[in-house]
């Protein structure tokens, strides 16, 4: 992958000046590349990776396996797009294997997520079955390990 993208995936808030120093180029060049990535849709957004467990009112994440009947035109795309438009749906993936779509739903309570499944998702035309799992704990997300405070065990000065 492009080196600049790699760096932004690690820390999207890094200044163009620092990025330029690392890549051996100018800050202007970095800014221009970023603008191009944004315009072409390679970069879709910038988000914080939040450790929900540290918050007083954390969200409940529900993972749902969905089987659907593909349509003759558009295959899975239309139904996946319909599902994606619900605000409570965080992520939607098309999968190979025993089911078709994998959904990540965020809700304030388990009940709220359950309502989404029973009232909106399962009655949608084309959806043939669902299997719902509640996420218990996040250890690592988007490449970031959630716990902090690993000490550097190395000697502080060595030859």
């Amino acid at each position, binding site marked *: 992958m492009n*080196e600049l993208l790699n*760096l932004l995936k690690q820390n999207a808030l890094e200044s163009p000046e*620092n990025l330029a*120093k*690392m*890549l*051996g180029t100018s800050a202007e060049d970095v800014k221009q590349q970023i603008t191009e990535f944004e315009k072409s849709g390679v970069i879709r957004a910038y988000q914080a990776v939040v450790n929900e467990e540290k918050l007083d009112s954390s969200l409940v994440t529900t993972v749902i396996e969905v089987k659907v009947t593909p349509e003759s035109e558009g295959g899975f795309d239309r139904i996946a797009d319909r599902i994606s438009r619900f605000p409570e749906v965080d992520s939607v993936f098309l999968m190979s294997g025993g089911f078709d779509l994998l959904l990540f739903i965020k809700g304030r309570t388990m009940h709220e997520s359950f309502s989404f499944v029973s009232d909106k998702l399962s009655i949608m035309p084309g959806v043939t079955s669902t299997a719902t799992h509640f996420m218990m704990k996040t250890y690592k997300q988007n490449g970031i390990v959630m716990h902090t405070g690993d000490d*550097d065990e*190395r*000697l*502080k*000065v*060595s*030859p």
Partner: protein
Amino acid sequence: MNDSKSLHSKIAKTVRDIPRSGIRDFFEIVSSREGVISLGIGEPDFVTPWHIREAASLALDRGMTSYTSNMGLLSLRRGISQYVAKKTNIQYRPEDEVLVTVGVSEGLDLAIRALVEPGDEVLYHEPSYVSYNPLIQFAYGVPVAIQTKKENGFRLTRQDLEENISDKTKVLLLNYPNNPTGAILSKEDVEDIAAFAIEHDLIVLTDEIYDELTYDQEHFSIISVPGMRERTIYLHGFSKAWAMTGWRMGFTCAPPELTEAMMKIHQYTMLCAPILSQEASLEALKQADTDIAYMKAEYKKRRNYIHASFEEMGIPSIRPEGAFYAFADISKFGMTAKEFALKLLDEENVACVPGTAFGKCGEGFIRCSYATSFDDIKEAMVRIARFIETL
């Protein structure tokens, strides 16, 4: 008898006369402080890749807890032979030309002890890794340090060699990519040195532990020069490129006579390298390219950053081409390297190693390791910039 003065007099003179490493003194000062950002660490900040740790763990589960052949596991020696051949096009027979050692440190000690007789001169270049000089002295040899210069990019030149050779010179010890300067040699430099070694019938010890870590051009090994395989002991190991320092795994490649000589010392002093570390190293060789490419890409970005930051501060350092050190020239501040390092530590809590720890021509320089997280490097550069404003 039991007072410390009389005990001191019992210690062998060679050992008594050698001062302990300047790094160690500095380490003790740094260790007594809290919240230090250390650019003084000469080992990777990565942990050993997971698949290597898994392999060692599996080997332990399988009960691999015995000695191995003195030379090391044959499967590992085969792997090493293939790895070296792929990099250098030079073939070493796993059966009698590859020896597995406890780090390159042991390999160096073996090589020097196998070759040096009392009074033999060993040429090496400074600034250098801290062990070279003492190891030569422990073998009753005479260390002859060639002072490399910043103007030459800390490269060893043919002229340097001409000026320091004598009829007692037996061995030339090379270390490129270099710790502490980050310097590398071009193919032409290496060929010049090789021609010199052949002309003067020298044995060359080449410590190429950092060979995977070059950022702008590929490393060229002296063993690849025709006529050099026959007179060279090639020293390498797993510590730096695979982030395996604590496993203590190195190896030597050399003609059978030299390997046999080193093996004798190894056999009677060390017996063999630890079997779990050997198993881990065997696994390391399987995915060498992917593991190394990942770490190297990270170091390169940090190298670029730290070099650009020093330039911005008006502290000229040669652009480090290899290893993971920047050797920054702080001579214009009118302090010794040690004074600068101590004051920087005192005022900004940033630890760097004074260049003089690596030989007297390191005066006026500090070694800054970029085997440190990027966040720490950024903060250290902010602090150093603030520090030099006050000078």
